[in-house]
């Protein structure tokens, strides 16, 4: 492994190995306990079901609330999963153990974020068929577009969520703080995703969504870069 974590002297291969090791570790823990996945999943189903009834069925069609319901569900379910990510590292001071190795810190962050992304993606991909089932929306013709939007919005909020959760687990109010700090950062990706989703469900052409897609792309680039750069600043010297 690399002798130092500053500058460009670590090899891309070593970096990849650390990222892979952390993703594998987190996924192994998750596969054995299934706590985060099951709780996010059950939560997602509950929210989808509750939001279906949170309207006047004679005045509002379920298709009109569907895009919003989908993204509120994804957001809240993801938040439950993100909360767990760094709680694991706090137990037995596991994060300190990782920091004592010569692994690049950026790689630790990328590994944690990637593991979170896989978890959130799994929850989303399982909720999506349920969403189709509950809300009776035709998504199959536009599935590639919908999955692209889901990926773009999810990457953004997992990156910010991972960084914020690494900080909040070390505060007094811990898990309570995450929604409070994270939700303002979700406004651009969630509003964008809801708008694009409703345009997709309404069968509109891609050209009408270009503004929102550009916004999502810019947000992804800005916040993935920022969170990677800032992660080191959240760690103790």
């Amino acid at each position, binding site marked *: 492994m690399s002798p130092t974590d500053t500058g460009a002297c670590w090899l891309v291969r070593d970096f990849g190995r650390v990222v892979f090791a952390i993703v594998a570790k987190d996924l192994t823990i998750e596969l054995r306990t299934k706590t985060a996945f099951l709780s996010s999943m059950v939560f997602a189903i509950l929210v989808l079901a509750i939001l279906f009834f949170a309207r006047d069925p004679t005045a509002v069609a379920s298709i009109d609330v569907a895009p919003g319901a989908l993204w509120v569900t994804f957001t809240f379910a993801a938040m439950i999963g993100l909360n767990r990510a760094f709680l694991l590292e706090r137990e037995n001071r596991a994060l300190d153990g990782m920091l004592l190795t010569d692994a690049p810190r950026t790689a630790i962050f990328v590994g944690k974020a990637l593991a979170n992304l896989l978890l959130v993606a799994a929850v989303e991909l399982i909720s999506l068929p349920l969403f189709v089932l509950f809300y009776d929306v035709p998504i199959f013709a536009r599935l590639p577009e919908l999955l692209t939007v889901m990926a773009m919005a999810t990457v953004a909020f997992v990156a910010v969520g991972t960084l914020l959760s690494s900080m909040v687990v070390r505060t007094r109010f811990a898990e309570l*703080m995450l929604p409070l*700090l994270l939700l*303002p950062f979700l406004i651009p990706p969630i509003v964008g995703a809801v708008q694009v989703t409703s345009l997709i469900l309404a069968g509109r052409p891609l050209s009408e969504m270009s503004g929102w897609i550009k916004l999502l792309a810019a947000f992804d680039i800005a916040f993935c870069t*920022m969170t990677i750069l*800032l992660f080191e600043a959240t760690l103790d010297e």
Partner: protein
Amino acid sequence: MISRERALGIAKGGQIVTAVALVALAGIFVRALVFTPVERLQGPAQKIFYIHVPAAWAALIAFSVTGILSIVYLWLKDRRIDMAAASSAEVGVAFAVVMLTTGPIWGKPVWGTWWTWDARLTSTLFIFLLFIGYLILRDAVTDPDTRGRFSAVLGILGLVLVPFIHITVYLFRTLHPEPIVLKPSAPSLPGEMLVTLLASLAVFTVLYFGFMMQRYALGSLRELREQEVQSAP
């Protein structure tokens, strides 16, 4: 950290600056109500403009200062900079409250509604909530160095978030009056109104510095007291 004498000196200075600003603010009220013409379409409701816009301006300065000081803090790791960033955020929240309460009072007679999900209203509401989150985060961390680092990271993320929120809501739709002073062509505000507005902007800026100095001194004194308590037998 700064010494107790220095903190008391800054507090004193802050009180003087604030007092001067408050007297000037009374002058602005008189000028706005008596010596500035009534707007033809909006009537007397437009007078709130001379408080609303300067409060928004002061909040904007305050949050920008917090964001910039956050970057400087991560670079220099000086506790005084962290304290200044926190003071600025708290003062900014106070000005944001003024802005968010005067806005609807004007909106009701002129727009016919207290609130609308317009670009500027929504952006400022979320920025306000973000900075409340910033202050709560500071409260939740006991170690001063960790607190400084965490809040600096949040401050920097916030600085990048603000334009994104604005574009988002702008893409959604907008209703807020267009800028009439800071715009590419010449200001379209009549001369007397412009003078009142500019004077009010200046007064609110001074008021911001007065509050900021007092808050900074208070924060420093509180930290000194905490150190005394901890080091006492």
